[in-house]
């Protein structure tokens, strides 16, 4: 029965120092144990450690020895760090089960390859050992952003000031949404005054931006204004005044009416 070479990566460290020998009596000082526990990734990792450290043959594991060592270890763990123990306890149960099945004499017929009660455990141990090895190899590969450096040099970008495309329908849809949403809140009802009133309000305001004051009648002086437009204009003036966007004033009775910016 040959021993497998011990994987150096299976060695555990305490405070950065390699533990050359697994303590025979399993006594580990409590604070060291915590460090020790953290160096195992789980029960399979611990079992592999015990197997390698004691030069056990993974394909012919002496279940009694391994189970005893493992349980002694888990007992220590329970004393210090209970919350870690769940996965480890499950493994204890599995080990005891395998051990007991091996004690039961088997009928001759069942004495075939692959029928070993240990085979599932061994399969798991080998699979885990493979993955563990693979993970260490993976970590040896230079990683971009860590120890692999790719180029990313500058180049001058031509910034074209292209504006977003907007269609008239986009605006209508947006307005549609606004009205629909607002209609769901009675407190935010939207007044539905006619657009042309609104437009006249804007244009009167613009006029007042340029001229300090505007003669009321000048707003109606354009030729061939249809009556509708005149009314709209008049409404716009009233609305502007009511919304306190302009002032309307008159020096005296029958004198001229002026509009002015506020």
């Amino acid at each position, binding site marked *: 029965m040959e021993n497998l070479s011990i994987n150096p990566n299976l060695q555990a460290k305490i405070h950065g120092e390699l533990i050359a020998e697994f303590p025979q009596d399993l006594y580990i000082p409590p604070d060291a144990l915590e460090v020790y526990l953290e160096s195992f990734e789980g029960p399979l990792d611990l079992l592999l450690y015990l197997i390698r450290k004691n030069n056990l043959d993974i394909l012919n594991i002496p279940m009694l020895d391994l189970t005893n060592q493992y349980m002694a270890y888990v007992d220590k763990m329970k004393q210090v760090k209970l919350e870690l123990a769940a996965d480890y306890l499950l493994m204890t149960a599995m080990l005891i089960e395998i051990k007991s099945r091996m004690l039961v004499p088997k009928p001759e017929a069942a004495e075939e390859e692959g029928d070993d009660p240990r085979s599932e455990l061994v399969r798991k141990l080998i699979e885990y050992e493979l993955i563990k090895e693979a993970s260490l190899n993976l970590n040896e590969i230079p990683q971009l952003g860590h120890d692999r450096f790719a180029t990313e040099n500058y180049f001058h970008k031509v910034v074209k000031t292209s504006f977003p495309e907007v269609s008239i329908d986009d605006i209508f849809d947006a307005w549609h949404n606004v009205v629909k949403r607002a209609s769901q809140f009675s407190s935010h009802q939207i*007044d539905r005054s006619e657009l042309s009133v609104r437009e006249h309000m804007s244009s009167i305001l613009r006029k007042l931006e340029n001229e300090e004051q505007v003669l009321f009648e000048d707003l109606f002086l354009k030729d061939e204004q249809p009556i509708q437009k005149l009314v709209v204009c008049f409404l716009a003036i009233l609305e502007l005044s009511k919304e306190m966007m302009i002032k309307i004033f008159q020096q005296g009775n029958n004198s001229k009416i002026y509009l002015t910016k506020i």
Partner: protein
Amino acid sequence: MEEIIKLKEVIEAALLTSSKPLSIDELQKLYEEKIDRSTIRMIIDELMIDWKDKTLDLVEVASGYRFEAKVKFTEHLMRMNPDRAPKYSRAVLEVLAIIAYRQPVTRGDIESIRGVALNPNAIRQLSEREWIDIIGVKETPGRPSLYGTTKHFLNDFGLKDLSELPDIQKFEEQLNLDLSDTQVLVNSVVKKSEDQKNTDQESYEE
């Protein structure tokens, strides 16, 4: 001499793989032992000359040195990195719609219609586009600016005037809004409702 070439290679590799300009201080970190700033500067000068006829230029910018593609490649490189067509956010379009349909409006009006605070960016974007501007001030506390759409806006959308904006009326009717207060003033050209403001609706007609 052997050593100086090696240092030059290291500095070139560092500059080529850095995503940001490297200062001389940073380049000094490449080695544990201290390298003279003047040596590094000399090497950078050499590299600038080495690369003169190649694809990149080694240039000095505010925070250090960097390689950049020669300008003649810009056109090709831009083709591979096309600007994605910019888009306005929903908020910006809604603000534009509110200003177009409800002008003149203040920030407060926009906020109360949308029910959310106004992101100043929306106003800025639309102003930069010259689609809206300030057309006056409202005489209420704080004297808020009044926004309206511009001629430019009408031009860009091919409209003669605002009445050519898609008609919201039809759609409001669909929404079953209470339209009972609609006043048929002039062949229904003008429709005025002030219900939400609790004002006397008959006030103008008299």
